[in-house]
């Protein structure tokens, strides 16, 4: 097989990993749309091997309408298949062959970065950044020690995304407390906070506060996915 070489070093390749329900899909969608708005060509990949027919499927069309190339099973593909076991979407395997940016949503969260082995050419991809999404309100990552232990279990991690929230009950204190702990753990493990994610509804309050990491305001798409 011809070795995959990537000439265009300017392209963005990010893989979102982390605890189940930590916000991986939400981060991946928002990041893909952000890049797309800059006029870039973006492929968003649903790499959930445990529940492959559920994660992005219900909102695939909405995301495609916004200009993303979405590699995910569609309603038609999934019809009648239900929970037919772990399955790799063949298009996901070849995702890096797409031109432009590639954002990988490593769904379900059980295997950490190991799932990336399923993507052809991933080891030869110099742009790849593996980002671990951390929500300090998740009980398994709700303290310094637990977060550290969890990150160390993930395999390769290049940076952290601080995504502490409580759904519709999120207030800025929760976000900032979460950021502090995530930052401390990051410093200890020598991992940068690539950005902090904050619900766009908190823009007004958060905008008054200065924080030492980049802030991305996110729009929530996953409540529309229901599952």
């Amino acid at each position, binding site marked *: 097989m011809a070795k995959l070489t990537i000439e265009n070093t300017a392209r963005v390749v990010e893989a979102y990993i982390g605890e189940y*329900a930590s916000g991986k899909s939400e981060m991946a969608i928002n990041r893909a749309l952000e890049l797309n708005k800059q006029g870039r060509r973006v492929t968003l990949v649903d790499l959930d091997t445990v529940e492959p027919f559920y994660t992005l499927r219900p909102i695939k069309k909405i995301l495609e309408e916004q200009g993303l190339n979405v590699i995910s099973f569609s309603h038609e593909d999934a019809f009648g298949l239900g*929970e037919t076991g772990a399955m790799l979407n063949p298009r996901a395997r070849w995702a890096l062959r797409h031109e432009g940016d590639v954002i990988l949503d490593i769904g379900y969260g*059980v295997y950490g970065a190991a799932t990336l082995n399923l993507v052809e050419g991933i080891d030869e991809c110099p742009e790849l950044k593996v980002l671990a999404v951390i929500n300090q*309100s*998740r009980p398994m990552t709700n303290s310094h020690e637990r977060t550290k232990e969890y990150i160390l279990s993930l395999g390769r991690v290049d940076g952290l995304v601080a995504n502490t929230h*409580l*759904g*519709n009950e999120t207030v800025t204190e929760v976000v900032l407390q979460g950021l502090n702990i995530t930052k401390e753990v990051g410093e200890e493990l020598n991992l940068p906070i690539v950005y902090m994610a904050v619900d766009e509804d908190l823009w007004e309050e958060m905008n008054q506060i200065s924080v030492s990491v980049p802030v991305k305001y996110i729009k929530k798409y996953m409540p529309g996915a*229901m*599952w």
Partner: protein
Amino acid sequence: MARITEQPKKSFLTGNETVAWACLAADAEIMFGYPITPQNEVMHYWTRLAPKYDRSFLQTEDELSAGFTTCGAVQAGKKAFTATAGPGNVLMQEPFGMAEAMRLPTVAVIQQRGGPSSGTVVYSQQEVTLTTFGGNGEGHRIVYSTATHQEIYDYTIKAFNTAWKYRFPVFVLGDGYQAKMREPLELYNPEDRGIEMVKPYPLIGLGGEIGVDREPSHLCNIYSLEEELYEVVMKVSAEYESISPEIEEYEEKNCEDADIIILTHGIVSRAADDAVKALRTQGIKAGYFRPITLRPYPAKQLREAIQKSGAKKLLIAESAYGQFERLTKQEIYGETIQVEHLYMPGVGIIDHDIITKVKSIL
């Protein structure tokens, strides 16, 4: 007793994870289970938590075995539970029947999925009949139907106490949406809320001499004589009926002057709550009634709500084709209120669906 949190803390969880944390907080010692969507993460999280808190887990070869091993563990005095869904719930009805017959304090969490048959993993409320009356017996069991993650936490903890206090099998009835959905809730240690956990005790291998030191412990699910079975079932029925008023739970809002009462259970109650608020702002006198226990059913309270309101109509909304309606009708037999329904099997119900239906029938 392990403290799961230093101070009450809001956390962001899926419903399945909430079950695992609640079982931990309730001092459950062992889970028996077999994988099935949408309850898998109950097992995943229990197996992640168990080693850290010195608890146990056994994955059995199927749901029959998971049910029976739960029955066995509680007889040995272990606080044990299982979780399942759909066809797993069908298979577990045999052990659950045994639990009814032998008065075993089993706890089972059911995350309802679509049916009939095996492969449908999506949300529904189609396991109401199965969970309330699925055994080859009289339905001597207690079923809590939850609506929020906080309730999943609260009622899973309560389920253990109800089981060990009254010695009937107890069920927490959720569904695929509650299982997978994420929302904030407060995790707490039961003792911090003044909740005393009933201590488990062995039902077999007891000390002392039978007839001298203690009564015999009859744990029997085989009766060879008709008269013997009759006697036992009549005795257990009477006991179940006598404790029912202590166990029945419900939620009622705006029924005093209601022209129409909306009756829902489980997650659909959230839509009904929103619908009633919206209808009230539009000048439509809607009321809200929700049984929290489906077994025993708070029939007396529902009858009272109907009577005091003078409502002309009762709208039953469910993500099933009439299972909740059948259960309700048998419980309120004789009421003359007109019963309407909104059946959406396998489909989520939102406030808009209920509002539209109410307007079409008023």
